[in-house]
């Protein structure tokens, strides 16, 4: 039981790191500034930056996310919570892909 909890916690930490990395790269904000309660609209310099973030997540996750699921996401924590509902290996491989985002 304890091992299972520890594995779950490790997965959540990995997910958080991956999400923060994508947001940090796209919005050019240091990871240390991406607290869970920070609103994406406040972090983004403009609407284009927000669009780019959404499309990067979509590309990274290979179409596994739906508009309805993310349309009302507001904060960094919301993105992390949503990502935690996805299979662990999906976000991990997504994170690797964003190192060289496809054009």
């Amino acid at each position, binding site marked *: 039981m304890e091992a299972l909890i520890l594995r779950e916690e490790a997965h959540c930490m990995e997910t958080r790191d991956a999400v923060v990395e994508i947001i940090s790269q796209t919005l050019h904000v240091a990871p240390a500034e991406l607290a869970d309660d920070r*609103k*994406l*609209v*406040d972090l983004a*310099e*403009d*609407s*284009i*930056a*927000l*669009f*780019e973030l*959404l*499309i990067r997540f*979509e*590309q990274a996750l290979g*179409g596994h*996310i*739906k*508009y309805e699921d*993310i*349309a*009302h*996401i507001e904060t960094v924590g919301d993105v992390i919570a949503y990502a935690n509902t996805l299979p662990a290996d999906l976000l991990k491989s997504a994170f690797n892909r964003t190192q060289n*985002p496809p*054009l």
Partner: protein
Amino acid sequence: MSKDPECRVLRNDSERLAARAIVKRAYEAQRYSAGSRIAQYLQGSHAVTFGLIRDEILYGTISVVVDSEQGLPMDTIYADELSPWRSLGEKLAEVVQFAVDHDVYAAAFGTKPTLFGAVPLFAAALSHALAKNIDYLCISINPKHDHFYNMLGFKQIGARKQYESVGAPAIAYALYVPEWDKHGSTKGFFGKEILKHMAV
């Protein structure tokens, strides 16, 4: 009860002036000069300005200028790049003055627009280009946004230059309008959202 946001053509000088104020604030927030060089292109019959409006509060805008004898705003620094296309008879238009004022929206409605709040403006510009049988929808972008426009299927048509009047760098991009929906990224939720708003 508050209405849903609507995106429509701005009808009079008062509305267009409010749109220009939004653009000016957006430019100044990024320490650029909004300038006035584009205003002359927006006053003629070849231009249309769209607004994003909720409960009569204008909080977003985009304009499309169709090529004419007056030329396009981006001719200022990209005339040589556009010239071959004009020689071939391609019909050009330029997207300009895109801005969304999150603070105006927040002050009126107590919350900022949703992440996709500005999509209807893109849909309106694209619908207008299709309706006018435009071949290439051009745009002069800030280089920091190049990844986004690449993802939407825009192709770079001009090297990085400096807009002296704005005090900002620029790169020229263009979208081949008749095949705008053939690009892979438009199959995703962003493209679907644009299609949804184009259908309205």
